[in-house]
């Protein structure tokens, strides 16, 4: 086998191999849309974060605007602290509210932002005041059961 033929084939092999890696990174993994963008960080305190995980999406009006960067526990207030890293292209008013929602019935949990009406925008390191915790199914069921029981008790007491 000729030397330059071997070189040519190895060149072709390496080129299409790197092309495949690029295809995986750009078309399959979508490298372009994230990671390089500037972000700013905002804290949000929740009474209960349910099954929220680090790197869960932060959405506003259904559009992904950031990710959950970190989850911690505030030992003073006994609350969960979620650090949201939001794309710097998207600015939110200071009275924006954060809710922990679930996509679909059994899907993963994400944080939904609903913009407020304040003139000042959230800045890096600030804290969101208005939050709503995750819905925990067990609490919901026990509330339902208690209210049913209470209704039954009222009905009997009324007689």
């Amino acid at each position: 086998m000729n030397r330059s033929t071997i070189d040519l084939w190895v060149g072709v092999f390496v080129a299409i191999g790197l092309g495949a890696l690029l295809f995986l990174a750009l078309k399959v993994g979508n490298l372009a849309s994230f990671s390089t963008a500037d972000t700013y960080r905002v804290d949000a305190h929740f009474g209960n974060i349910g099954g929220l995980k680090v790197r869960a999406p932060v959405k506003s009006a259904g559009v992904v605007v950031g990710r959950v960067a970190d989850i911690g526990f505030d030992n003073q207030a006994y609350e969960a602290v979620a650090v949201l890293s939001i794309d710097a292209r998207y600015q939110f008013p200071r009275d924006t509210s954060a809710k922990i929602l679930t996509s679909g019935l059994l899907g993963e949990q994400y944080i939904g932002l609903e913009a407020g009406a304040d003139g000042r925008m959230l800045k890096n390191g600030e804290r969101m005041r208005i939050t709503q915790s995750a819905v925990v199914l067990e609490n919901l069921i026990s509330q339902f059961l208690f209210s049913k029981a209470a209704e039954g008790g009222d009905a009997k007491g009324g007689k």
Partner: protein
Amino acid sequence: MRAALIRLGAAVTSGVWRLGYASRFFVYLLAHSGTALRRFRLTVREIYFAGVLSLIIILVSGLFVGMVLGLQGYDTLQRYGSSEALGVLVALSLVRELGPVVAGLLFASRAGSAITAEIGLMKATEQLSTMEMMAVDPVARVVAPRFWGGVLSMPLLAALFSAMGIFGGYLVGVVLIGVDEGAFWSQMQAAVDVRNDILNGVIKSVVFGVAVTLIAVFEGYDAPPTAEGVSGATTRTVVTSSLAILALDFVLTALMFTGGN
């Protein structure tokens, strides 16, 4: 009873001895890789034999594995009304597991066995000792280029396997069955993470490349210099490296995908 215990002890001792010998061989090989990297043409030749000549089997297998994943995945997913997640299923299973593992197994049987047979035969026909007599280090001149050729080829082959498999899944899912094309790609892009999934897959393929090629060159270099010895060493290469790939894959998966989340 005593004889059985002696046989057991001998098997363990020789196994440990071979493992130690292989590790010393690996260190020696790394220390003498200078020639292979300085005279890069030697390595390029080995990339041709290990990588380019494996292209056909890798591409065709990747395409068929992807097409089968598309058919099977669609069959299961459409029962739950989520056939749009087909892209996610195909891409994640290929990028995380099937790409590196199946490409590694194919690479071991296609290129690893050839490397072992070549080096073993060079040893059996005393080409290696001739080199030593001419003050040429056979590890630097023969073994190291083959090692680096294999190590450089393997990640590229695994990436090609995954890309081809995703294309196969696309062919079956979108073109043949008619899953929505936009949902196929966009759900895939939303679910596949570049660092967690693709980079970990590449790391896996690099590790498998080192393991397979090291086993191949070691078995060839260590083969008894007879026709029987070379054939036995070739078989051992394929068996040992396949087992090594599967065991390493378990360890790497446990390290990569179970923490954090």
